[in-house]
């Protein structure tokens, strides 16, 4: 089976400045693929390359096995796109705009737009210029979904959506994936990707750091334990304990990373006066920060 998205050594430079460098990844049908990275990492560049809005400097990029340059129109007819920086026709109403989009996609009326608008409680008759940021984002989402696309390219999709609408959006994504359709979701919000994606690619400064299943990332992750002591324990108090690493020390507060059984750590802690103890499962955010800290120390 061909991958829905296949990038090979994909590189894009804007003159001298870096877009993305040597990207290689595949996205399979029926998954939500999270594309995670800080602003300026190259997420939008990657999506715009897929739509032939910009052209790669080198490397190959195929969607549905089609060349994104030579077969761009065919690619775009099967793809729905929500830009990160959404610009709409201010004078049109959402209904007029969605009808235009549907017409250019060869659909009658609004396609699925009417039902989607109802679901998102989007008012169709007020001019777009009078809409709030959240409502504009809804217009963007509806236009991306209205032709029942095989692939959705969503660039920071939940920006400006209130929690209830995000809930609707999450449900919609789940349905899309259940139908075997595919979602490529870019975000700088780690918890969002963690919640929605099956696999995640982390991009930094134009290069892929890693591509992994969200579950694997979680398994790799650790429990973060933060203990506040009455008097700071000696430096070597937790050295050599199985599965325990000391991450940080701020006066009486010691932050530890724990993998595996908590027992040795609890027994070690019990020797000192512990005023407070906080622990939670490290989320992608912790992982992400750890990755970045590592990158930084490598560079130094």
């Amino acid at each position, binding site marked *: 089976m061909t991958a829905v998205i296949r990038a090979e050594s994909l590189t894009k430079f804007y003159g001298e400045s870096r877009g993305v460098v040597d990207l290689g990844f595949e996205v399979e049908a029926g998954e939500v693929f999270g594309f995670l990275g800080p602003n300026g990492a190259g997420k939008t560049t990657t999506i715009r390359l897929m739509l032939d*809005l*910009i052209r790669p400097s080198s490397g190959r990029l195929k969607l549905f096995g089609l060349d994104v340059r030579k077969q761009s129109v*065919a690619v775009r007819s099967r793809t729905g796109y929500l*830009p990160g*920086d959404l610009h709409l026709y201010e004078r049109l109403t959402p209904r007029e705009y969605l009808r235009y989009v549907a*017409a250019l*996609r060869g659909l009658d009326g609004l396609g699925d737009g009417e039902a989607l608008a109802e679901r998102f409680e989007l008012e169709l008759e007020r001019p777009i210029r009078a809409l709030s940021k959240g409502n504009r984002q809804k217009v963007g989402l509806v236009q991306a979904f209205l032709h029942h696309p095989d692939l959705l390219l969503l660039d920071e999709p939940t920006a400006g959506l209130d929690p209830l609408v995000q809930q609707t959006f999450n449900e919609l994504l789940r349905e899309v994936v259940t139908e075997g359709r595919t979602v490529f979701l870019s975000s700088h919000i780690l918890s969002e990707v963690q919640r929605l994606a099956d696999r995640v690619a982390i991009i930094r400064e134009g290069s892929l750091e890693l591509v992994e299943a969200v579950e694997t990332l979680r398994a790799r992750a650790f429990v973060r334990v933060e203990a506040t002591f009455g008097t700071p324990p000696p430096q070597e108090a937790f050295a050599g304990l199985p599965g325990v690493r000391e991450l940080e020390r701020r006066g009486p507060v010691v932050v530890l990373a724990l993998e595996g059984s908590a027992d040795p750590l609890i027994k070690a802690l019990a020797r000192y006066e512990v005023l407070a103890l906080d622990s939670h499962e490290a989320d992608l955010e912790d992982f992400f920060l750890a990755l970045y800290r590592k990158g930084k120390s490598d560079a130094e």
Partner: protein
Amino acid sequence: MLSSVFAKTLYDRLRSFRWWCLGTLAFIALYGSVFPSLHGKQSLNKLIEGYPQALKGFVGFGGNLDIASGAGYLGTEVFSFWGPIVLVAVAIAAGSAAIAGEEERGTLDLLLSLPVSRTRCLLEKLAALVCEVVALAFVMWILLVIVSSAAGMGVSAVNLAAAMLGLVLFALDFGMLAFAIGAATGRKALAIGLSATAAVIADVLNALAPLASWLDSARLVSPFYFYSHGDPLRHGIAGTDTLILLAIAVVLGALAPHLFRRRDLSTP
């Protein structure tokens, strides 16, 4: 209603188009009402004869300075002054808005994420540009035909149409230039600035040509020369001149897709 890029582009232009029509109506009514008081006044022509040559070049149309006649009056007031300004302005506005305007507003990204090829998008916008210019010229023509007969100018509807055709092609030359620059660069101000400058140069070259012999051959690069020198208000359509004006527009129009296809769209 908004079922194609063509229709959408026309719809966007409609707002300003109404005002251009209204202005056209006001101007032509004004010109028409002034003419009867000038009609046949040879003293006026004598006055103009005394103008410096440099000035005469700007007011004449096809070398004709007889503003006491209907054809001379329309040539001077409408076809060498106000008509080109309006139609060229409309053409440049439409040409620069087509790609560059939409790209700068950031709406082109979403438009070209739809299954519309760049070439098709461009051609539909180009067709809309031609339609807008032709439509405004048509409004001008109708009003001029009415005014010409009402004020006794004695210029036939056919000759007015011939002059108007030249004017449309002349305006399209600069509209297409703005369109092509916009398609090549995505920069609206650049498209407007360069093509408006080109239009002014074309006018000045043609007007000053009689002053110096070296300018006389330089006017051959001026579309204004081909638009005006056959004096279509008196002599009807001038075949070669018309074809040259058409060729300029076609070449610039054909260049646009070529320039647009190969570049990156700018990030909104």
